[in-house]
């Protein structure tokens, strides 16, 4: 019976059984599995190429395979990456070189500037490296605006600005900033938890810190240090802790709430060490003033001495009879050399006038003869020594004399003056002989005397005798002086009448009166040869008098 059942089962399910056995054999035979998998594997991988799980599964395997391959024979890998390794190296070198150049530039700039020297001193003083000090001073930044934004909606919760910063409508900016974040997140397939960290444009950076419900964005000008990031992180965490419920309510009803100021204000840093330094320009001004004062204090005597020397030289150049040759400094002393006429002022006298210290001056003067008129005049006066009544003057190069002098002096002076340097000619025509002057004065006295007559009379009246005596004595003295000085004297007797009577009578009276006085002179010793008579037409006075003429004797006269 069992056999019949077995036979029946074989008839009913025999074909299926065979297929099952065949499948079992396939499953139990690893060699057959490999063959099957190898047929479907490429297509399977291709189909799941976009699946990240496949990549994650294969990643470690491929990495290990590469390691094993490189250990076994690196050449195939080297060959494979050769086309890309060259450009990569070049790019890395270019980048490193660029950084190096920038670093050198920065170092040079900081090393040779006053500020750089100050930083070097600070590095020595504090024991920090120069690089650390430069970095600490270079990291200048200013947080200009702060946006606290509801993360999901982009609605603005709070906006702060630094003093003097003009801001666009912050709620719209906050919205757009959120939109940009969403755009970046969508575009680059980052997770929802990730957010925009920063936006950089030139020296402006928007640093963004994301919290679960709030985003804090700080608009920073300059280079913010890493520590500033931490300040933002702490702020956004603080807002989350303190205002979690407010933020939830805000998105539901849109009603604004007050953010605790101490949470955000630390983020709005407007000054750092460098800006403090900049905030005290008066210190620099005072330091500069003190420096200038010190320099002035030291330099003042030298400046004064220099100015005094310049004044001295200016005076020397203007001084007649002095020619300045060279001016300079040698061994800390002022030096001046030139020419000086002995008649010019002594340059030493000018030193005191200029306020110059004689100890700092060395001067050397060569004598010379100045041809300036005043010097020629002084030189000629010294040579001819004119008597007091004589005045000398220069007209062009002609020495002219005016006054009274003896003939002998004039002769001598004329010769001497012509030999004086600068005197081209001598003009003594205006000089009077002292003998002539004296004799003329005597003659003038005689001419003042008068012998008077009675009306119609030709004989003198009154004290005519004594007058006639004086007249004759003086004429005789003149005759003597003339004889001593090669001159001759001529005497003319003149007489006048009153206006009464006719002309003929008066003519006769004048002749008679002249003859009477001439006779009186001759009677008193005056040689008759030098006495002549003449008439005086002057009417109204009955008198007679003398006119004396003194003439030089002609050459050849004994």
């Amino acid at each position: 019976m069992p056999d019949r059942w077995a036979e029946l089962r074989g008839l009913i399910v025999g074909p299926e059984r065979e297929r099952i056995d065949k499948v079992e054999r396939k499953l139990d035979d690893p060699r057959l599995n490999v063959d099957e998998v190898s047929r479907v594997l490429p297509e399977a991988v291709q189909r799941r190429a976009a699946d990240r799980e496949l990549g994650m599964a294969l990643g470690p395997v491929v990495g290990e395979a590469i390691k094993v391959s490189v250990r076994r024979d690196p050449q195939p890998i080297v060959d494979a990456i050769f086309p890309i390794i060259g450009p990569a190296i070049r790019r890395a070198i270019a980048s490193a070189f660029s950084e190096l150049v920038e670093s050198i530039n920065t170092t040079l700039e900081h090393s040779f500037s006053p500020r750089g020297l100050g930083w070097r001193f600070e590095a020595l003083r504090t024991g920090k490296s120069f690089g650390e000090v430069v970095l600490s001073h270079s990291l200048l930044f200013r947080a200009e605006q702060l946006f606290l934004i509801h993360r999901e909606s982009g609605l603005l919760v709070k906006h702060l600005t630094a003093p003097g910063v003009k801001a666009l409508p912050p709620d719209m900016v906050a919205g757009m900033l959120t939109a940009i974040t969403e755009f970046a997140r969508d575009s680059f397939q980052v997770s929802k938890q990730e957010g925009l960290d920063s936006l950089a444009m030139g020296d402006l950076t928007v640093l963004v810190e994301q919290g679960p419900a709030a985003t804090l964005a700080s608009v920073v000008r300059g280079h913010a240090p890493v520590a500033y990031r931490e300040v933002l992180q702490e702020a956004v965490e603080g807002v989350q802790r303190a205002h979690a419920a407010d933020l939830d309510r805000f998105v539901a009803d849109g009603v604004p709430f007050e953010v605790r100021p101490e949470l955000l204000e630390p983020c709005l840093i407007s000054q750092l060490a460098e800006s403090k330094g900049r905030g005290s320009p008066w210190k620099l001004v005072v330091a500069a003033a003190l420096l200038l004062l010190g320099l002035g204090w030291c330099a003042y005597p030298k400046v004064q001495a220099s100015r005094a020397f310049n004044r001295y030289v200016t005076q020397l150049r203007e001084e007649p009879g002095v020619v300045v040759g060279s001016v300079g400094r040698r061994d800390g002393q002022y030096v001046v050399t030139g020419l000086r006429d002995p008649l010019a002022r002594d340059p030493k006298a000018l030193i005191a006038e200029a306020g110059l210290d004689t100890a700092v001056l060395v001067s050397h003067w060569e004598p010379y003869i100045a041809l300036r008129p005043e010097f020629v005049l002084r030189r000629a006066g010294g040579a001819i020594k004119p008597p007091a009544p004589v005045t000398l003057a220069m007209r062009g190069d002609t020495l002219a004399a005016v006054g009274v002098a003896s003939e002998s002096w004039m002769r001598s002076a004329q010769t001497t003056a012509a030999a004086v340097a600068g005197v081209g000619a001598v003009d003594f025509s205006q000089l009077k002989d002292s003998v002539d002057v004296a004799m003329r004065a005597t003659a003038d006295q005689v001419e003042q005397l008068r012998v008077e007559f009675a009306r119609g009379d030709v004989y003198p009246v009154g004290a005519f005798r004594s007058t006639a005596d004086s007249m004759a004595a003086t004429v005789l003295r003149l005759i003597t002086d003339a004889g001593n000085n090669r001159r001759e004297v001529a005497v003319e007797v003149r007489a006048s009448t009153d206006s009464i009577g006719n002309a003929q009578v008066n003519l006769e009276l004048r002749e008679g009166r002249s003859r009477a006085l001439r006779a009186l002179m001759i009677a008193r010793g005056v040689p008759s040869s030098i006495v002549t008579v003449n008439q005086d037409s002057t009417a109204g006075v009955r008198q007679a008098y003398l006119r004396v003429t003194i003439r030089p004797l002609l050459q050849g006269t004994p």
Partner: protein
Amino acid sequence: MVIQRKVCMLGATAVGKTSLVRRFVESMFSERYQATIGVKIDRKLVELDGMSVSLLLWDLQGEDDLQRVRLSYLRGAAGLIFVADGTRPETLTIARSIQESSREVVGDIPAILVVNKADLESEWRVDDESVRAIGFSPENTLKASAKDGRNVEAAFQLLVRQMAARAS
């Protein structure tokens, strides 16, 4: 006190979303932003029952065959304004499609439909029935005109009223 609310404007390309708001809102950003990042943000202050509401209007780039609305921009929105063009029935369909997609992001929030180009109503190819057919009730629908300004203020007022009703 000014309440802030985020409102997104959605619709097909060239239905007049930007024109609709251009004359009625405070703008700071140019329309280039829509072409680049797909959104431009404007502000509209609405006074309603003694309450001031500052609407931050996210004017999203229109949807068409080539581009889809970036739904991530809808996050945090308190209200939506769908815009369709009365002369182009397909824009109603697109509005409906965007509305369905938007529910996945923002859920069921106050929304109104503005059928633009009311100044060309004689040329319209949509009617009340077709509007109802895509799920907007007549009380949430306004015929407006960006050209003559008809019902534009009313549309913002309507949305703010709905948002206020929802909040209370």
